[in-house]
């Protein structure tokens, strides 16, 4: 192969204490579809954001068409012919498709608009992508919006097109159509980087694959040399599982039971579909899976913020599908939400008012709210969970992410003591936390189980699950596709199930 069209060498990028890219390399040849594969957090998107000018690398060399370049901002990338379509589209909903494609170059007057329109039509013809130019983007289905994004990038002169997880929001038919269009694009002279964590897509659509793990390239291979077994090995590594944090327990009676639960989201898509699982007293069940496979819906349906459209949900043997959050709390269900800012924190209210949230009716069964009680609880929480803040009256929105998580943990574990909690749902509870905070939270989870509590730990960090869980279930496309008891923990087999790989 001749000199690569794009070459990234030794790219480093840190976000605070987190090393996102640890000397990553990448080469893209002209006229290929190149799959960039890796688990969540492997650095795929960060690396491509460096190429697209959204992040500036701390160190590393960038070459485009054999010439060293410096990309400081998105404009530089556009000038070099690099365009990126993000996972969440950046379109103006009440503009038409045409207006979105030509955004920033629209000029004024009908004549110019007509000329631009002809340009876009010619482009559509050339690359084989057709979109209804005069429809408002907000009225278009997701698959078509994606085409608008792709055309927008191409219209700005992209010869290198980066697609970040382009299939996440698409239906299977739309995925087929996307793959077909990518081929046409390549024939028209565009080179494509396809970021994904789905094996099947890589094997189906890419010419070459680069696998990343922990901020570095593991390998780049031609598709012919890749098979699901080896790809998974490269993605998750072959290191032995971390030593378990606790002995396997003999579980008691079931606390949470789901049978064929179906949850439909606002778009009408079934995000949980035939999901069945059970968690027993004293048991910590880990839910593994690549994000976007129903984890949010699972957490919501157990916490009581989403209602199942079908199926059976029992808590401590009683049907609870129709119960709301308050009833769940009464039955001893607590939750640590995935998105702490969105679902966990009252940002303009004080630390004290945040600590008591969810327990306020326990402490104040009557009409009166006593701020001194909240402050007392908060001082206790600040001390025990080492929350760094000016005091109980500080606004919670001023706290750092790690301290917010400690605040939420304090709320939940204190409530667990007071209410005889039976079930704790924790969704990515240690994401973004430093090592001591993570250890601290893990110890609390284990302690809770030791006292007979049941834990449903939904996590994208496989090491966390291998360390803590008694049993790991794998969620893929809204259902449990595999189960692993503690004595059969196998990073490779779990990883393969997570990526939808064929099960041996």
């Amino acid at each position: 192969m001749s000199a690569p069209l794009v070459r990234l060498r030794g790219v480093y990028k840190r976000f605070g204490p987190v090393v996102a890219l640890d000397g990553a390399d990448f080469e893209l040849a002209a006229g290929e579809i190149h799959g960039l594969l890796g688990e969540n957090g492997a650095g795929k998107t960060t690396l491509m954001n460096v190429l697209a000018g959204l992040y500036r690398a701390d160190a590393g060399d960038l070459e485009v068409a054999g010439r060293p370049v410096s990309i400081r901002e998105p404009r530089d990338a556009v000038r070099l012919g690099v365009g990126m379509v993000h996972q969440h589209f950046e379109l103006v909903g009440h503009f038409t498709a045409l207006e979105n494609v030509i955004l920033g170059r629209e000029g004024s007057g009908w004549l110019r608009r007509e000329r631009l329109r002809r340009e876009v039509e010619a482009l559509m013809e050339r690359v084989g992508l057709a979109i209804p130019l005069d429809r408002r983007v907000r009225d278009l289905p997701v698959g078509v919006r994606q085409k608008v994004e792709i055309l927008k990038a191409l219209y700005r002169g992209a010869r290198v097109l980066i697609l970040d997880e382009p299939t996440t929001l698409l239906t299977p038919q739309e995925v087929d159509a996307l793959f077909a269009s990518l081929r046409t694009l390549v024939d028209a002279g565009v080179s494509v980087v396809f970021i994904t964590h789905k094996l099947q897509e890589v094997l189906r659509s890419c010419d070459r694959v680069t696998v990343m793990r922990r901020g570095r390239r593991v390998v780049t291979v031609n598709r012919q040399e890749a098979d699901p077994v080896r790809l998974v090995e490269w993605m998750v590594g072959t290191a032995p599982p971390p030593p378990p944090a606790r002995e396997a327990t003999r579980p008691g009676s079931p606390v949470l039971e789901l049978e064929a639960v179906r949850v439909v989201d606002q778009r009408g898509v079934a995000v949980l579909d035939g999901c069945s699982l059970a968690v027993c007293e004293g048991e910590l069940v880990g839910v593994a899976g690549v994000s976007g496979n129903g984890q949010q819906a699972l957490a919501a349906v157990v916490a009581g913020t989403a209602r199942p459209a079908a199926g059976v949900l029992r808590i401590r043997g009683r049907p609870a599908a129709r119960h709301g959050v308050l009833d769940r709390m009464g039955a001893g269900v607590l939750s640590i939400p995935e998105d702490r800012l969105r679902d966990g924190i009252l940002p303009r209210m004080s630390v004290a008012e945040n600590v008591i949230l969810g327990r306020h009716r326990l402490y104040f069964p009557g009409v009166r709210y006593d701020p001194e009680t909240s402050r007392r609880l908060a001082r206790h929480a600040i001390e025990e969970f080492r929350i760094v803040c000016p005091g109980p009256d500080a606004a919670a929105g001023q706290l750092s992410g790690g301290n917010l998580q400690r605040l939420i943990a304090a709320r939940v574990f204190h409530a667990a003591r007071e209410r005889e909690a039976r079930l704790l749902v924790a969704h990515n509870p240690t994401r973004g936390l430093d090592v001591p905070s993570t250890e601290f939270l893990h110890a609390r989870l284990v302690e809770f189980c030791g006292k007979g509590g049941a834990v449903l730990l939904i996590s994208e960090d496989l090491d966390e699950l291998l360390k803590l869980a008694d049993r790991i279930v794998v969620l893929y496309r809204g259902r449990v596709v595999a189960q692993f008891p503690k004595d059969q923990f196998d990073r490779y087999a779990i990883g393969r199930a997570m990526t939808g790989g064929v099960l041996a």
Partner: protein
Amino acid sequence: MTTEAAARGRWQVVWPYAGALAIALALLAALVAMLGGDAAQALAGLVRSSLGSGAGLGQTFNKTTPLLLGSLAVILGLRGGVFNIGVDGQIYAGAVAATGAAFVLSAGPKTAVLPAVLLAGLAGGAVWGSLPGVLRARLGVSEIFVTVMLNFVAVFLVEYLSTGPWNDPTAGEAITRAIPPQATLPYLWPRAGAHAGILLALAAAAGVWWLLFRTVFGYELRAAGDNPSAALLGGVPVRRAVGLALVASGALAGLAGAVEVSGFHYRLILGLSPGYGMMAILIAVLSRRHPLLAVPAAMGFAALLVGTDSLQRSVGLPASAVFVVQAVVLLVLLATEGVRRGGP
């Protein structure tokens, strides 16, 4: 905030407004001079007619009452995460209910009639607030549209009543017959013409503070307003809290309407609210959604309205020029608020 931080915070609020007031007064003097008046005389008259004399203070108190009640209504809504821009409609609804109650109960003793009239005002406003409240809680309909639309409904209802069934045939304008004496609010300070409404408004400010910061309902209301999805996960019945916020907000505005009828006009008139609802939003923002800070904010606002009104008499400014002066003062205050927040 710790207590010292809170004290510091309070000063940070006060200083910019003192500065804004100085700028506004300077502009006002310049404007009066431009329009051919005597600036010094105008400023003296402004102060004397609003704060510097008994009669002026009385007028300022009377003006403070609906402004404070209205801004408390807005604050209660904002704290619960809803934007009640229907305070005017709720004032009218409360005024209609209060007037109706006064006519129906005209035979009773004052100790029974007056409380009933005020309660009717509360209830009328609450009904007006419950429509957007229920629609928002049950169907998620934006309260902004519903409250604005209901403003028109309330105004037309008043127009119908004041020109139709309740019309005072001797007046020849859109006003109703006078309410019976048992339904009127007593004077607090008869020589100054100040009625007892200011006491109700101050009590309401304390009551709203207590409700927001010392009751479980208020806690849940604030939680729902701050972050509905976190509140929901914390077991707060968010939709109910938000709906009730609108009902309570409407009730406060309705009380303002009842007080205007029972304390000031003694009848229902078209134009009872000269845009109190919009000014209430401004006061609510200036007082940073705090019910106790709304007291000085509403009073300062009332003093400005009363004082600038007096320019018609003291320096013979035409009424339209007075509106210009008021608008300039408002703009300065708004700009100050923008600067205090650190720009857009």
